[in-house]
């Protein structure tokens, strides 16, 4: 875990309101443990927005890391105004990683919206490790997609409005793939309703699943106790001082589907 000023290499809109930023962060890159980890980003000197913003690592390639972010509010707008050569301050790598995908399963990767970021990172790892896998990417409409629907390559896109790929949510292809593939393992990140649907499905079908969840973060390092989610587990974690809650910044963001609850 480090604080590092990273030089921005590229920063561009890749789909409607969705941006990709690449930067050089050699120190943080050295500490990476795997897909699922995130960075806590500071985008300005001013204290108007005192808190950093957590963003999943979308790719790592030597010293170069990337994030994929959606313009949501003040800070993501500021991020999108950064230019090549500017700096941002990163705290990371933070959080845990997806696991078990190397253990003889068929990983089914599911990304919704900018939840795609850690899923793409996991996809790269599967590719490097030559592990056969499928990936399902959901969005509301084709303009939010920046990857092509390609069933031959096991890349399945869905859109709510049917403008690209399959019409409907990620659940369509997911239900199909779980049946088709031997020994499937689901890895998902996306909006809460999607994660809930994946969770319920995985429990009902008894298919193992890991979900990368979001929560409002103050610090990313266990200081503030702000980032809790209710936890359905008897495994007591000291971080959150009590078994009822789990700190997403330290115990997460990746959880076994069965271990967490949604509000």
């Amino acid at each position: 875990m480090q604080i590092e000023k990273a030089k921005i290499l590229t920063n561009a809109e890749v789909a409607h309101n969705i941006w990709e930023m690449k930067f050089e962060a050699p120190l943080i890159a050295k500490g990476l443990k795997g897909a699922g980890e995130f960075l806590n980003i500071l985008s300005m000197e001013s204290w108007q927005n005192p808190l950093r913003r957590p963003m999943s690592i979308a790719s790592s390639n030597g010293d170069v890391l990337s994030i994929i972010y959606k313009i949501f509010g003040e800070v993501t707008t500021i991020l999108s105004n950064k230019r090549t050569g500017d700096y941002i301050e990163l705290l990371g790598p933070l959080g845990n990683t997806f696991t078990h995908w190397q253990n003889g399963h068929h990983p089914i990767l599911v990304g919704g919206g900018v939840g795609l970021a850690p899923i793409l990172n996991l996809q790269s790892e599967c590719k490097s490790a030559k592990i056969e896998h499928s990936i399902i990417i959901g969005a509301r409409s084709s303009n939010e997609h920046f990857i092509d629907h390609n069933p031959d390559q096991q890349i399945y896109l869905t859109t709510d409005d049917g403008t690209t790929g399959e019409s409907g949510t990620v659940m369509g292809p997911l239900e199909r793939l779980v049946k088709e593939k031997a020994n499937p393992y689901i890895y998902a990140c996306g909006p809460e309703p999607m994660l809930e649907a994946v969770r319920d499905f995985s429990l009902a079908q008894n298919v193992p699943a890991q979900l990368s969840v979001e929560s409002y973060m103050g610090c990313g390092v266990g200081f503030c106790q702000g980032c809790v989610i209710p936890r359905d587990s008897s495994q007591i974690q000291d971080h959150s001082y009590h078994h009822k809650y789990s700190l997403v910044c330290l115990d997460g963001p990746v959880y076994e589907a069965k271990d967490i609850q949604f509000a």
Partner: protein
Amino acid sequence: MKRRISNLPNLKLTMGNVEFDNPIWVASGTFGYGTEAPELVDVNKLGAIVTKSITRKPREGNPPPRIVETSSGMINSIGLANIGVEKYIQKMLPVYESLSTKIIMNIAGTDIQEYIEILEMVESVSSVIAGYEINISCPNVKKGGMEFGVDCDMTAKLTEALRSRTDRLIIMKLSPNVSDIVSIGKASEDAGADAVSAINTVVGMSITAKTGMSNIYTTYGGLSGPAIKPVGLAAVHKLYNKLSIPIVGIGGIVSEEDVAEYMLAGAKAVQIGTANFRNPGISEDIISRFNLFMAKTKWGSADEMVGQVNTHS
């Protein structure tokens, strides 16, 4: 005007029976139990660590959402999630033996008896803790702390009860959510507190217009960060004018200049809170930069500048 550019300025101070290396501490609830981020901060550089509030029993805290950013600030309603005094004694006190920084244990309770019990449990074992900060001002628990923080008599009774049970440093932590913070401070002083600290968070609320949702589960939470620095400075200056015990300044400190402002207003030491969330190493950085700042001022030591703000009068 004497200037001491060559030597590092003297930042040492004594409060109660404790000597601190420097007046820059980290605030309760904003630095965990002090052991969370060893890669990012050398805690032995800090003047003191005030640990997260401890209650008699472990507390799970409030449901999320617990925090939200506001303009130059944030609101929290953690609800005193903590490991409870037994685990604190068992797990944390031994760790503190190996740290050279001073540890101040922050205590919270729902009635006088609970505060007493906690303090007695800690006093009954041997440990290196330097003293206690008594949280009578947490806005985020239904029963508890808050009632003391607005009432002089209760504050006095609590202070006396604890004073009679320890020789260690006792700092009463005051709430800004009162008509008259000075009277609560005075009650603490008269009842034997070694110092008061001010301020705890300011009661606030946050709503997202588009969704109509409260951004904090408990509706109200505590506002902290640069937004409240003016409130903290005013509280410290008012207390300084009327009290003779030292004041520990808290609220919105993010730079060495903020530290100096609090000291000029009357704080003998300060605590850094919210800023630690932005940068876990910031307190260490501020200590270095405060050294440089002092070297360029007319003040020979940090102590000399306490309360010396020029108020035009």
